[in-house]
């Protein structure tokens, strides 16, 4: 592999690089500082104090108090814990409101709740418009006396579109309904202040903000009803059994502190790089469409569809140049249909299969962005040259095997 190009990592909504400072903070706890934070002796106690610091660092990033933070193993565990806790708080209520564009961590949980609770729940999945936005009137109309919990993501992982969760949480609160938000893509990228929020539960994932994989946190508003998902020892004040993943939790704390300090850079320099990348690709490549609302969006994400070509092919060509990205095409989703997010937005099939998500971080440089703007047009042109739909007289179905597809 003599000529392997350097990696240009633009897949930060999938996972992020562990920040060197985070790794450094963690290392001692892999080695000599192996004490159990719950122990009575001072050898373990010093670890306990660092754990408390980490809890405070996580809390500070989102304007919470450290008592409101529970450490978990990942964002998915936080989501499950919150939603199941809310349902247990209202055992007689059988209705959940969520959206059609949630991450599988929430989507699949809601679809299979009966296995966990023994009850069938009615799930209202709010639709989104072509820009990926929700209709708040529709949201209000969906709430009723049987609604136990609302779970709506803060920002979408595929498009970066931000939902007005603060406003939605207030509406829920007025109706006595608990509100959970999967904020794994938002935390660290946009300012969040739980001190002035009506949100009851908020999920955080470590590896989305330069902490390692395998650690997450759940914010539970003080006074909100709670029931643990994992029952065991008295760790996390009995709210999550099991000895803490101390090393990773310390990494998460450090990462949150760094994210707070970099908030301006994220919304300044990173946003500018994202905009440059987006404008560069949209202006240089014909039939390229932006997916998601242009303004109401995370600063680091862009999702662009290149019509008449297929996403996996684009990704493999990018891979030849060391460029890492994602796609919502069927061939990359592990199923045979394109991303449920793009389908919910009504992105036409001509575009959904050719979608590419590029997600940046503070580690990206302008040279990297220039490289992508330089390479992408050639890749798309080559694939279009090969595509039977490009510039052909009959764009759309070419007949042959009949495909009256209505699976949007």
């Amino acid at each position, binding site marked *: 592999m003599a000529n392997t190009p350097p990696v240009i990592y633009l897949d930060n909504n999938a996972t992020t690089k562990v920040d060197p400072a985070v790794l450094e903070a963690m290392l001692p706890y892999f080695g000599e500082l192996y004490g159990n934070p719950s122990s009575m002796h001072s050898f373990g106690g010093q670890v306990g104090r660092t754990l408390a610091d980490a809890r405070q660092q996580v809390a500070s990033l989102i304007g919470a108090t450290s008592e409101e933070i529970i450490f978990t193993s990942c964002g998915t565990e936080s989501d499950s814990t919150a939603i199941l806790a809310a349902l247990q708080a209202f*055992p*007689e209520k*059988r209705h959940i409101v969520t959206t059609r564009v949630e991450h599988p961590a929430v989507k699949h949980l809601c679809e299979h709740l*009966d296995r966990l609770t023994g*009850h*069938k729940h*009615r799930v209202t999945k709010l639709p989104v418009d072509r820009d990926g936005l929700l209709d708040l009137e529709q949201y209000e109309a969906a709430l009723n006396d*049987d609604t136990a919990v609302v779970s709506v993501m803060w920002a979408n992982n595929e498009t970066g579109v931000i939902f007005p969760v603060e406003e939605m949480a207030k509406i829920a609160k007025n109706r006595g309904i608990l509100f959970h938000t999967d904020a794994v893509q938002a935390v660290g990228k946009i300012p969040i202040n739980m001190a002035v929020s009506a949100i009851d539960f908020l999920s955080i994932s470590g590896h989305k903000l330069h902490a390692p994989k395998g650690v997450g946190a759940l914010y539970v508003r003080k006074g909100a009803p709670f029931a643990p998902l994992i029952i065991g020892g008295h760790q996390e004040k009995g709210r999550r059994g099991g000895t803490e993943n101390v090393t990773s939790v310390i990494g998460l704390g450090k990462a949150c502190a760094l994210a707070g300090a970099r908030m301006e850079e994220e919304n300044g320099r990173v946003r500018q790089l994202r905009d440059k990348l987006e404008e560069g690709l949209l202006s240089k490549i014909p039939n390229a469409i932006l997916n998601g609302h242009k303004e109401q969006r995370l600063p680091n994400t862009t999702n662009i569809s290149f019509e*008449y*070509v*297929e*996403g*996996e*092919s684009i990704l*493999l*060509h990018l891979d*030849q140049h060391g460029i890492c990205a994602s796609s919502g*095409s*069927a*061939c*990359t989703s*592990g*199923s*045979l*249909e*394109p991303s449920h997010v793009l389908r919910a937005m009504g992105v036409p*099939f*001509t575009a959904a*299969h050719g979608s590419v998500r590029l997600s940046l971080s503070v580690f990206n440089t302008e040279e990297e962005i220039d490289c992508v703007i330089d390479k992408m047009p050639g890749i798309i042109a080559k694939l279009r*040259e*090969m*595509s*039977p*739909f490009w510039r052909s007289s009959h*764009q*759309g*179905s*070419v*007949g*042959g*095997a*009949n*495909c*009256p*597809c*209505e*699976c949007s």
Partner: protein
Amino acid sequence: MWEYTDKVREHFMNPRNVGEIPDADGIGEVGSLACGDALKLFIKLGPDGRIADAKFKTFGCASAIASSSALTEMIKGLTLEEAEKISNEDIAEELGGLPKEKMHCSVMGREALEAAIANYRGIPIPMAQGEVVCECFGVTDLEIRRAIHESKLKSVEEITNFTKAGGGCGRCHERLEEILREERQEIKEKPAAEPAKKLTNIQKIKMIEELFEREIRPALRKDGGDIELVDLDGDFVTVALRGACGTCKKANLTLKEYVEKKLREQVLDSLVVEEAH
């Protein structure tokens, strides 16, 4: 990430025979934009009746492009009778194998070849004549039956991997099971499915009413209440609480913890009880 062989990668990065043949003798088109992959194959016959040239245009993933490229190389120099014998397995083999979830790409290649030959001969595409089983991807029973035989498929999942049938909304899964059983000559051993799943609405209503009469009403009447079945929509049972129950604060708890539980135990475990408003 898919584990592609070097040969797949090589054909994908440097595809052979991309393009169109303006005066082609046969053109085969399969797939569509909606389906996520499509192949248009052009063949030109020489004076000796052999395939002198073949070109393609493909919309799809790496394995679709590689399958198309390999196919055009394989058929050059063959008579139509020889080309007809190429199976999807032959195409996959030529590429050193394909991930099982991607076998449908090789099937698409083979079908495009058949379509091109049929086009040359002026006859309808044989596989398109069957009953459309999967509406999402437009797959006919003939394609499915052939794939089951040729590739010795044993499950619906495998059928999806090879033909894409059943990979969309999933509504055809039962029919796929049926075809699988037919093709594997297990029609007579069709197991007696749980009868509970096949209840008609009328049967459900009857059983619910019987249970109300037998157990639930007598219990509620003890507290001065009563219950009435208002409607049934699939698994959603709408009821109205009468008498003391109608004003009781714990009525909803009664509905869920008592009525719904009883209905699930004795009628159907997927029922959901709701109060009429």
